């Protein structure tokens, strides 16, 4: 459990980091919080020749509100998401989610950029990006580009990032009035990656959803923005309608099998989460009908 030998470079600026990545290409890896990369290196699952440590780049850290947009620097730590008043105001879903990411020691080091670049399908934050309609800001050899969260995640540990790219920030629309969120995940122990989880963002209008975005995670090879949500927006929700949406959700999901759960169990838990989410957001206990929804 010792990493293979590697060269180490501490980037002095974003430009410098990009230069280093351009030179070393696939042989290099960016190091942020190291909470996914270092364990993988110690297990010799990956053996990069060069580590480009961006940890000192203050320009990549911090949370700021710019007009109607919330900008979160790539190096913002999970623990910072939990403490930030801007997050509470503009994107409380992220705070709720961050509380479920690992344990305090890991949250003190792990970063949002690292989490999104890692793209673990069971991670909380990528699903939040879908629910919140985020843009991922990337700097690469061709300059800056913005990638919609829905396009960013492409597979297990796969994203639109090329080896020469640096994820620099996340941009989110500031929550509108009437916004509400729901976050819940099922994990065997606190801090574990979820068996199934749901990060949901809604806009409420009276007793209905004006908008409902359901970001499921750990239900396949990447986070899923469930289309079934469409059935529930703009209408009065009855148990029958919820059951219909739930069936559509089952249909839409193509969950994987692992040691924790079969695909059938994941579908079932996704349905339970849907019922809990809708019942909670609309404050309608009658809709909390478990997996029977």
């Amino acid at each position, binding site marked *: 459990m*010792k990493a*293979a030998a590697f060269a180490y470079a501490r980037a002095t600026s974003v430009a410098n980091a990009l230069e280093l990545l351009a030179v070393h290409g696939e042989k290099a890896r960016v190091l942020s919080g190291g909470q996914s990369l270092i364990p993988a290196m110690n*297990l*010799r699952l990956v053996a990069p020749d060069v580590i480009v440590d961006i940890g000192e780049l203050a320009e990549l850290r911090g949370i700021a509100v710019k007009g109607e947009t919330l900008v979160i620097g790539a190096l913002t730590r999970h623990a910072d998401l939990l403490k930030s008043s801007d997050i509470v105001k503009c994107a409380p879903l992220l705070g709720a989610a961050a509380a479920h990411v690992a344990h305090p020691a890991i949250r003190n080091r792990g970063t949002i950029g690292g989490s999104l670049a890692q793209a673990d399908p069971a991670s909380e934050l990528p699903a939040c990006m879908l629910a919140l309609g985020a843009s991922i800001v990337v700097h690469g050899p061709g300059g800056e580009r913005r990638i919609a969260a829905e396009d960013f995640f492409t597979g297990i540990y796969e994203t639109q990032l090329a080896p020469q790219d640096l994820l620099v920030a996340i941009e989110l629309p500031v929550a509108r009035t009437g916004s509400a969120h729901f976050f819940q995940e*099922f994990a*065997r*122990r606190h801090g574990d990656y979820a068996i199934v989880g749901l990060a949901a963002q809604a806009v409420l209008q009276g007793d209905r959803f004006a908008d409902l975005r359901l970001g499921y995670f750990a239900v396949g090879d990447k986070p899923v923005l469930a289309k079934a949500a469409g059935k529930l927006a703009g209408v009065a929700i009855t148990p029958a309608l919820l059951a219909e949406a739930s069936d559509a959700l089952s249909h839409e999901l193509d969950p994987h099998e692992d040691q924790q759960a079969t695909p059938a*169990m994941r579908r*079932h*838990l996704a349905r339970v989460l849907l019922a809990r989410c809708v019942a909670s957001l609309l404050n309608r206990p009658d809709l909390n009908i478990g997996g029977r929804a």
Partner: protein
Amino acid sequence: MSPVRSNPERLSVLDRPNSYIGKTVPRPNLDRLLQGRGSYVSDMELPRMAHVVFLRSPYAHAEIVSIDAAAARRMPGVVAVVTGKELADVITPWIGVLSHLKGLKSAPQSAIAVDRVCWQGEAVAAIVATSRVAAEDAAEHVAVEYRELEAVTDMRTALDPATPVIHASLGDNLAFERVLDAGAVDQAFAGSDVVVEAEFIFGRHTGVTLEPRSVVADWDAAEARLTIYQGTQAPHMVQNIAALHLGLRESQVRVVCKDVGGSFGIKVHIYADEMATYALAKLLRRPIKFVADRVESFNTDIHARDHRCRGKIGVRRDGAITAFEIDDLTGIGPYSMYPRTSAIEANQVVNLVGGAYTTENYRARARVVFQNKNVMCQYRAVGHPIACSVTEGLVDLAAMKIGMDPVEIRRRNLIADDAYPCASPSGLRFEQLSHHASLAKIVEMMNYEALRAEQVALRKQGIHRGIGIASFIEVTNPSAAFYGVGGAKISSQDGVAVRLDAQGSVICQTSITEQGQGSQSLTAQIVGSVLGVSMDRVRVILGDTDMTPYGGGTWASRGAGIGGEAALQATKILRKNILDVAAVILQSTPAELDIIDNAVVNIGDGAPRIELDELARIVYFRPDTLPPGIQPELMATRHYVPREYPFAFTNGVQAAWVEVDTDTGFVKLLKHWVVEDCGTIINPQLVDEQIRGGVVQGLGAALFEKCAYDDRGQLTNANMADYLVPMSGEMPDIDVGHVVSPTRESELGAKGAGEAGTAGAAAAVANAVNDALQPFGTTITEIPLTPQVILTALGRI
């Protein structure tokens, strides 16, 4: 504490003024450990020390066609690459059998595999280098060609004629079989109103010590002596076996065991890679260090508990249990582990099922089969969790069938507290147990009636909570009946030497070991109390075969009961010797004197007569002032082993209060209670924490822990993310209560407490979950109780 009986005459040496017995006093080693001054083998560095990394088989079963280490040998820092064949010249193979387990067979096992590997993780080559990193780098360049063989993985088909035989020389894959038939079982079932059957399934479990197995072996060619620094529970056993297989005399081997980062039974065995490390030190004539990394710990630390046990119980309408019957099957990996063997767990299951109850009708069969998975052997509470889960699961099923409360059926069947001494149908002899006092106490502690009312009320709101009860018995203080009679050179006796130093402090050498459970503390408490000195004056030395008396070590809940009694007896002699000298110096008689607070005092009025440091000064520096013919002996040694009873059985009862989310299959542990009876309690806090720690390991088995193998024999969750060790966030509060029935066999009266928590925790939780699920008409007899298992049972998926 509610004593079942009092023994005023017995408390004489313990119940002295300023006694530490029965008091929560801080452990003497606490400051050292908290200040980071512990010395663990993993941290050890010696001059010229090299590190060994083992290249391990990726296959569960394969022939080794060739090993090409030429490239690895040229890598920077590499000292040697050694194969099994080469090491076989230095160390002989072994066979893990014991003669009292009749019919037990196993095949010779080598330190490093020769020609064939039998489980994924078995070592095929040792790479020795100047650092662990260099050795790991080189390991990637050792080319091994394997021819994969069919792996035997399913214990249920291991004995089928179509299944390959793992060791041809053994003829079949059956390692051991035991049958027992006591009373009149068929008649009893025929006369029962209800007979219930179930198959109980247990996940493979492992110990996950914080510090992995670690060894530094140092061969001194000049002295022809091997020093082994190892985190072990049994230094003298390691000494004996290392010497035996390296062709040395025991006097040529010293085993030093300093601080150990947890053991739980994992570190009481002889592992092939540790044997290889000793041999490498001898071969290469330099210190060699082996520290298992986490992945190899999962692949090679012994596993346990992989059992499938069919059980049957008969009961009459009035609740009387008429008979138990079990058929247990367990797969132990490709070898019976050395030297304690891998048949003990199944043997214990046969011994223990039904052991708390009065029925005399009991039939059992246990079969132990080989498979191509990691070896299984004794881990905390050996066999007890299985026996307890099967017994208590059956008792609850029977109660459910006849509509009787689980507490009531136990009241009607547990052996009465005044029925001792007595024996179980399997021949276990009980000196004094307290099942009824324990049950009464736990019912009161948990407020059973109120919980039942709460359960009923919550059910109406769709909240499903359950109560589970599990009575248990526990083997502690084993005599030679455990291993010695079977031919293993594992001592069941322990020795303690105590001496007064020149300033009136005490040095105590004991053969029991410390792995965090408080051996050092309990020894100092006993010595301080019996002698009359304060604990800070008692220095306890353990874990060194050159320094301590000969003895077994710390395992099988024996440290306090056996090592503690040896300490008591040795200290009584030292005390007598001191008083003899004091009487001479003071021109008094020993009967008129006592030692209290580090001074000799008048027994009558307590008036101080002479400080111990002054007495020591006279004895050591001015013996000329003593009358002629007086030769003080300020050092005393005593050994102790139980002889009357093969084991000092303890008993207890556990209760769990859980909530099952029937939509998700998740179980929440709300509260756990234990009442146990380990006899004399030396340090209540240490006992309670032993119980709690043990319970947590049982709760791990109940809900979380399982070594998951695929059907090719690959361990698929050999890491801390996928193998779920119970963590504090999921653990309930655990309330511990005691009933005290001291053993009369020793003056100390202590039985063991280290494993009781593990024995019954899973059974209590499983019964609680089934209690919660009663409205759904389903019972589950498989652990761990994962959400997948529960949702499946509920028909939700």
